[in-house]
């Protein structure tokens, strides 16, 4: 058992554990924090995959921005069963379905051709190169999307003198 494999298992336990917590937790805030835990685990996995920049971005965006915003909204939309949310009636079928999906994906993964299994690291400069030359247009579009989302969020949640 190499060191990276050990690290991998630990990280996957963190990720999956956090995820299970998100879907099973009674308390909304608990769920949020468990998500945060899971996503940090994901950041660790990125590191394992030699994608340092993305691990950084993951921590920054998810940990720094999204979780905060979600907590804000939870605070703003406080409801009575805040502390214990029950699940809806679809539990059995959803369980089966997601299990089925997991099975299908795993099956596809195992029976697929996976090449020669050598991890390589991407030079950071190459990433930047690729992002701004080959993927320049999607880059611009993504910034546009961000702008639109920003405006949209403001418009949608505006209170006051509409109608």
């Amino acid at each position: 058992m190499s060191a990276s494999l050990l690290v991998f298992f630990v990280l996957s336990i963190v990720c999956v554990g956090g995820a299970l917590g998100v879907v099973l937790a009674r308390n909304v805030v608990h769920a949020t924090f468990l998500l945060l835990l899971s996503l940090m685990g994901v950041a660790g996995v990125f590191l394992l995959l030699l994608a340092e920049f993305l691990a950084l971005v993951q921590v920054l965006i998810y940990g720094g921005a999204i979780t905060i915003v979600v907590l804000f909204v939870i605070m703003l939309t406080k409801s009575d069963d805040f502390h214990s949310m029950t699940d809806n009636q679809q539990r059995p079928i959803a369980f089966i379905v997601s299990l089925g999906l997991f099975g299908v994906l795993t099956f596809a993964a195992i029976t697929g051709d996976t090449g020669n299994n050598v991890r390589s690291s991407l030079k950071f400069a190459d990433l930047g190169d690729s992002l701004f030359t080959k993927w320049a247009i999607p880059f611009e579009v993504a910034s546009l999307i961000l702008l639109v989302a920003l405006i949209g969020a403001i418009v949608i949640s505006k209170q006051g003198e509409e109608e």
Partner: protein
Amino acid sequence: MTLVYFQILSAALFSIGLYGVLVRRSAVLILLCIELMLNAVNINLIAFSAYSEPIVATGQVIAIFVITIAAAEVGLALAIIINLFRNKGSVDIDEVDLMKW
């Protein structure tokens, strides 16, 4: 630690996120589970990128875009949830069934 490990991890996260989306009753929690699914996809993408021979940056670039879009989407979705809360008094999506027969 071959590529398959990462794929299975990604599949697991994705299925768990899917289960959460189908089962949870609060809109905010559904949003969190969607984030889970997106991250699972990211793991997959980056794994493919890392194990490619010769290495290509495509997977990582797309992962960047996914994170970007996810962030934008969370912002918008939360705005909608706030609006929903204002109109209905709760974020329970069981009560959002005006399109019922």
